[in-house]
């Protein structure tokens, strides 16, 4: 009989303190997330110092909860996987140092994980990955197309040159005076509006899989501003729908183009913006015509930041033999191709 593999994941890169335990890389035994969103709401965004303070308050509580939920002790663990980066450095440091303390005190192997690799591997908690595959990663800090030829190997074929899609959502939400975080509010408003404003789509140069959203963001702000000066009002629903249409059209068309070029078997949606209903629907529709390609979209709780995804990616990294020693540091600008 083959022994089960148990991996603990620790994730503190932004404003969630999260610990999870995964069995054999794919089964969730525990997945605990303490969100700080209520603490940051009144500031209109995540305040790094406050996020770090909350992580220190929460970290041992959440580790304990995860072990209880999984009905395991530390000695059952094969490895501890922790988000090394990217993210807020002060926030990352809490997870990294807690993981190192556990690894040292209980002689458990330590595995460093890239946050985006985690988002991609959230999909492996839904279904087994088949290669080659393409992942569209869309979150508050990232908009990337990542090609994977095999487990644990990442190649960024396109990324944003300025704002991440999630950032553009937050800025447009602020223009519309919607509460933080703005993404879900725009998504909701967009359901009731129509794409009437003909906002720009940034396709960039021929053949590029990169993205750019700063022009779109400025176009939204200018449109609102100009309308105000003329004494007109634009229905917020239509503005939201027009903005969202523009974002989604670029994301989906580039994804499909890359899918064709790289002849992938699977397309994985990953990152917090994967919770966006408009994006999900458009992708599902686009891929419903492509019978030979499987589209995977994780459930909402695995799209937003969590530690199950870090443990899932950590399981593969662990099998690849990747280890960190006790000098592991938080790396806010970590490169996803580093551990290929």
């Amino acid at each position, binding site marked *: 009989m083959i022994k089960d593999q148990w991996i603990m994941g620790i994730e503190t890169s932004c404003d969630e303190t999260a610990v999870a335990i995964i069995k054999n890389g794919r089964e969730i035994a525990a997945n605990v997330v303490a969100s700080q969103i209520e603490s940051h709401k009144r500031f209109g965004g995540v305040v790094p110092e406050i996020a770090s303070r909350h992580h220190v308050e929460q970290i041992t509580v959440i*580790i304990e909860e995860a072990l209880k939920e999984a009905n395991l002790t530390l000695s059952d663990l094969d490895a501890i996987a922790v988000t090394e980066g990217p993210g807020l450095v002060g926030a990352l440091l809490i997870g990294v140092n807690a993981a190192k303390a556990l690894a040292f005190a209980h002689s458990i192997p330590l595995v460093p994980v890239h946050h985006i690799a985690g988002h991609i591997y959230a999909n492996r908690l839904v279904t087994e990955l088949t290669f080659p595959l393409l992942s569209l990663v869309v979150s508050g800090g990232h908009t990337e197309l990542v090609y994977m030829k095999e487990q644990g190997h990442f190649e960024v074929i396109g990324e944003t040159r300025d704002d991440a899609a999630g950032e553009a959502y937050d800025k447009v939400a602020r223009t519309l005076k919607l509460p933080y975080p703005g993404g879900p509010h725009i998504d909701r408003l967009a359901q009731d509006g129509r794409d009437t404003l003909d906002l720009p789509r940034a396709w960039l140069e021929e053949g590029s899989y990169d993205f750019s959203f700063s022009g779109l963001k400025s176009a939204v702000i200018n449109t609102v501003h100009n309308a105000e000066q003329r004494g007109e009002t634009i229905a917020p629903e239509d503005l939201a729908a027009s903005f969202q249409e523009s974002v989604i059209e670029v994301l989906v068309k580039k994804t499909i183009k890359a899918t064709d070029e790289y002849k992938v078997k699977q397309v994985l949606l990953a990152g917090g913006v994967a919770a966006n209903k408009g994006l999900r629907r458009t992708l599902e529709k686009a891929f419903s015509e492509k019978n030979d390609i499987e589209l995977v979209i994780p459930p909402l709780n695995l799209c937003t930041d969590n530690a199950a995804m870090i443990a899932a990616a950590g399981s593969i990294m662990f099998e690849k033999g990747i280890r960190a020693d006790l000098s592991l540091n938080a790396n806010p600008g970590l490169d996803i191709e580093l551990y290929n």
Partner: protein
Amino acid sequence: MTILAIDTSNYPLGVALIEDNQVLGEYITNLKKNHSIRIMPAIQTLMKDCERVPAQLTKIVVAKGPGSYTGVRIGVTIAKTMAWSLKIPLVGISSLEVIAAGAGRYFDGYISPLVDARRGQVYTGLYQYQSGVLTIAKEDRLVLSADWTAALKEEIKKPILFVGNDLPLHRDVIEAALGSQAKFAAITEYNPRPAELAFLGKDKQGEDIHSFVPNYIRLAEAEAKWLEANGKTIKG
């Protein structure tokens, strides 16, 4: 009884291991380097050299601030996680008290340990040895060094020993206010000694580990601004 002490609250990085009434080992540096990279390897090396394993530890004592927010969080996170997972008590000690403990043991008067906090401010407090026990006369605080020394001049009649790596930055202000009442510790006393930290926590009761947090003294800047903008009074 084997106690591990950890201090990463300011530039000095300190680890000590004490057992019964003996200092087994100490590691101190005073460098502008990243504590997150160096502290765990320092703990590992010291414990290995002293031939002790984590399971033998009976208590962890950590310097809980004030100091660098990020620095103190690194030490506190490690101390909390180790203590909780090894099921041993955790004790937090003021980072300033540790500085006072070493420098002032045989000094007849008060001790003001200080750490620069920029713009003329210092983190400081007032301590005094009474019958061999370090006691606190004025709580740790963030204050302009000029205001602090003026207040001391007013209230304190005994000599006051100033100590800390940032002393040179504030020496002129201190001397101007207190003259010969101010005494200055030797450079070799500036660093907080992790063995002092271990002994300060040795007989103290463990605290609730989950809720243990650093003593930042100050609110996060965004929090303070928000409270001000919303007409609330700022405490702490």
